[in-house]
Structures are given as structure tokens and as C-alpha cells.
């Protein structure tokens, strides 16, 4: 609306028009700008490669010095796990015991939500927020309407579900439903039902993105599973096309021996 046209409107209506414009601007200003590329560690935050000349140690490398690193007496943090109702513990244990052959992620399936973690790139418009992922299983996307649209009912249940979002001040709150049952909440046999609902809360403070998710599955969980907050840092590094994911291990597995991961 031009200034000239504004002053052609009767004064009372002009006051209302200005008030609406200011209110709308306040709403837009109240929302955070979450757009950009986000370095969230890709789930391998523990990896600290060591470069020595032209050589590189990639896995489980401490600082290479002539003085041995001190042994820490601080116990490692126990990874967060959902708490299941008693009648489902046996099934979780069975899946845990056979996870090297039953974990869907090991078959290159999409990891599901919240297991996929925070996005690697966010594209933000006034009506939609788009999450892009560069995952070991491939590239994925989620389109999150923030214009009041309801959940879709015209699509099949899927690994990443159907999401809608609302702004609570500068925090984006995303609710996702309509999941298939072919993913786990995390590793170690953490299955879920088709009634899973996940709430994610995303906010930004300067170059840091904060992501926190809570999984609700009343049929099988003793309580909502609130996973620890994860952080991502703004980066200039663009996401890339994920390499092919090709499962080639299952046919060669002899037994279920495996190792715990840091998360």
C-alpha cells in the first residue's frame, strides 16, 4: 500500500489499517529466521580425527602427544532411551538382541523422526519451513506448513510422517504424525506404533540452532520420551547429494556381537 493511497482512506479506517500492518509486522518480526545450513555433527560428534603430516587417524584418536592422555574417572553418559510399558519390554529386548539384523537403518531405510535428528539445511518462507537432510541413508526432506493447514489425510503413512508447524514466539513447534511402523525411535530395539506423535521445538540464538524433540506413543511408552537437546552451528558448507546407501553386511553376519555407540 502506498503512502498516497493510505491517505485517501478515511482517518478511522486509516488508523485500523496502520494497526493491522504493525501487528502483522510484529508477528513476522517475532518469528526467528531459521534458514541456512546447519552443522549438527551428523551423529559423529565424537569423531576427532588427528592429522600428522600427510597421515590421518580417523577413528577414536586422542591428541597425539608424547605425554599419555590422562584417564578420565568421569563415567560416560548413558544414552537416552525411551521407557516402555512392562508388557513391551520383552519385545524391545528381543529386537535389541537381534538389532544387527533387525535395525531398519542397517537396511538403508530412512531413520524416521526423531531419529533423523535436526535438519542440515532449512529453507524458510512465510507459509512453509522446509527441512533438508544429508543422512547416511540418503537425502530427505520435510515440508512443514506454518499457515494453519491441518495434517494431510490424502497420503500414505511414511517414515518421516506428516508435519505441521506453529510459531510460539521465536520458537518453531512442529507436530508430526502419520508414521509407518518401519522405523525405530532410536537404536537398541526402540520400536513405535502408527500412533506415534513427535513434537520438535526449534529456536535460534545467533549462529546456534537448538533442536529438541519429544515422542508420544501412549500405547507402548510409559511416559513421553523427551530426548536431550541437540545443537547445530551455522555453516557455509552446503549439503551435498548423499552417496548411495547399499546394504552389504547382513548376509555375512555370523552372530549378534556389536558395540555401543556414544548416542
Amino acid at each position, binding site marked *: 500500500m502506498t503512502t498516497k493511497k493510505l491517505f485517501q482512506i478515511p482517518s478511522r479506517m486509516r488508523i485500523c489499517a496502520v494497526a493491522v500492518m504493525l501487528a502483522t509486522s510484529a508477528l513476522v518480526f517475532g518469528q526467528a529466521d531459521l534458514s541456512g545450513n546447519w552443522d549438527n555433527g551428523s551423529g559423529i560428534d565424537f569423531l576427532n580425527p588427528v592429522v600428522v603430516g600427510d597421515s*590421518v587417524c580417523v577413528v577414536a584418536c586422542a591428541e597425539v602427544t608424547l605425554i599419555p592422555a590422562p584417564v578420565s574417572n568421569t563415567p560416560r553418559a548413558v544414552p537416552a532411551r525411551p521407557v516402555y510399558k512392562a508388557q513391551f519390554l520383552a519385545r524391545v529386548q528381543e529386537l535389541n538382541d537381534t538389532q544387527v539384523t533387525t535395525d531398519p537403518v542397517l537396511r538403508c531405510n530412512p531413520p524416521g523422526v526423531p531419529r533423523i535428528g535436526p535438519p542440515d539445511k532449512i529453507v524458510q518462507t512465510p507459509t512453509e519451513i522446509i527441512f533438508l537432510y544429508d543422512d547416511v541413508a540418503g537425502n530427505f526432506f520435510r515440508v512443514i506448513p506454518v499457515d494453519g493447514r491441518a495434517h494431510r489425510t490424502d497420503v500414505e503413512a511414511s517414515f518421516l510422517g506428516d508435519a505441521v508447524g506453529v510459531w510460539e514466539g521465536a520458537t518453531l513447534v512442529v507436530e508430526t504424525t502419520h508414521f509407518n511402523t518401519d522405523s525405530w525411535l532410536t537404536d537398541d530395539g526402540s520400536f513405535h506404533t502408527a500412533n506415534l506423535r513427535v513434537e520438535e521445538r526449534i529456536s535460534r540464538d545467533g549462529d546456534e540452532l537448538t533442536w529438541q524433540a519429544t515422542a508420544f506413543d501412549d500405547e507402548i511408552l510409559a511416559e513421553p520420551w523427551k530426548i536431550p537437546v541437540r545443537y547445530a552451528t551455522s555453516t557455509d558448507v552446503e549439503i551435498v547429494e548423499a552417496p548411495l546407501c547399499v546394504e552389504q*553386511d547382513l548376509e555375512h553376519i555370523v552372530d549378534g556381537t556389536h558395540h555401543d555407540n556414544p548416542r
Partner: protein
Amino acid sequence: MTINFSLFCTLLLACLVLSGLISPVYAHHSVAGQFDIRTPVEWTGTISKMDWINPHSYIYLDVKDASDTIVTWRLETLPTAMFRKAGLSKEQVMGAGQEVTIRGLPARDGTSHLGYIMRINYADGHFYQLSAESTR
């Protein structure tokens, strides 16, 4: 800067014992369930191909057997994200055709010419440590 290699391996082993980590992160991959961690071996040859894929990359190593016949070993290694975090590209890992000696673990199920990489030593003296020596 030169490093004390035996000290480096000791530190590496200590770090591995503390971290309990030998496998990729996204799920609990079974290295010990597939490969014989008790009998590491070494293969010498040239890298003819690399599958830059997930959840594990594969290196194809052409090795001359006792009768001078070229036999190709398919050797499993890290997911691509771990290489990228370490600043390593596919081309760097392939080594531009130079001879390499790979220390690794043979397959447990008897599949011939299948193994898991612990370390690649290149003819020009540099190396990439991609897993750790472990008796677990």
C-alpha cells in the same frame, strides 16, 4: 614432525578402550560379528576401485597371489561422512595407484577375499588409520 609409532598405537588403543568404539555410529554395526578380530592380516597391492557409498565404503585391492595371479579383495571401511569429517576424499584414499599395505580383519563366514580395514599404509610413507587394533 615424526611420531613415535608404537606410542601412537598405544595411545590409540587406550583411546579405543576408553571410548568402546570400533563401529560406525548410525546404528550398531557388527564388526566383530562379521570379521575375525582375533587374527588381523595384511594385504599388499594397489587399489583399483573404491565404492564411495554408505553405510560402508568398499576398497577393491588387487593383490598378486603366490602364482602371480591378480586377486581382488573387497575391503569394507567407514561411512563417507567419517572420511569427509577427516578431510579425506575418495581420490586421497585410493592413493593414485601407488602400492599400499592394508592391515585388516578377514571375514568370519568364510567368504573369500572379503575383509575389514584397520589401516592403510601407502608406499610414500603416509597412512590412514580407519579402525583400531582391538582384542575384543
